[in-house]
């Protein structure tokens, strides 16, 4: 693999890596939102006496 090929591969891997990191961040965020939604639902049930 030539130097140019290594750099070009690296540049494309930067995009792929960024997308994967973003998916990871979103997965963590969805998990957090799920927990918060469960908390709010619990609080609403307690308040409404359900």
């Amino acid at each position, binding site marked *: 693999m030539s*130097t140019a090929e290594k*750099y*070009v591969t*690296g540049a494309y891997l*930067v995009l792929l890596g960024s997308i994967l990191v973003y998916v990871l961040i979103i997965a963590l965020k969805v998990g957090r939102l799920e927990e*918060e939604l469960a908390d*709010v639902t619990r609080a609403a049930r307690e*308040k409404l006496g359900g």
Partner: protein
Amino acid sequence: MSTSLLSRHGRGPSPRFGPLFAAAALALLVGGFALAFYWAPEDADQGFSQKIFYLHVPIALTAYACFGWGAWKALRLLWTGERRYDLESYTAIHMGLIFGLLTLVTGSIWAKISWGQWWTWGERQLVLFLILFLFYSSYFMLRYSTDPGPRRERNSAVYALFGVVLIPVSFLAVRIAGTILHPTIFTHEGADLPWQMLVAFLVCLAGMLSLAATLYRVELTGKRIDASLRELRELLA
């Protein structure tokens, strides 16, 4: 209660289009990169290293599009006073910064192959893009230095609108400066490249814009749910 939450944060984008954008992004990017590597001819001057063009330029143009979209939403906020535009403008600028960072990283890699250095301060387009990136990075500092509310939304919108002025300056800098390092492909006479390269580039650009649209929708939905949950918690407290 639900009407109030929806009107404040805006109704979520139609869920039907989300997978459509994602599928388009995947198909166009894979297709575009395949065209770039296996169909488009190799550049006579730069050789294989020119293949970064199909990645770097679409990313840079997508960053400009995101900042422009953020400014448009900011203008809508100032024009109509509808608060949902604040979150939309903020999300677009957030996306613009991600693509802006990718522009700087892929540009540096290309510079290292072509010019032998990661960065040069002598190139006005590079420096202006860095200024644009830093300007929008400061947007977050401004936004979080004030309490949530109409004042913060207005200040953020005005700042986003100021930033958009830098986009044409950054885009035209290399043409005005007439520098020799950074290549100018698109001039007022048209695209200075073979048609196969142009087709591959346009497919990559469409793919990158679709990717940005997908990420924008995902991010906006997340932020809207976050804001609605925060409001619900306050109402239940």
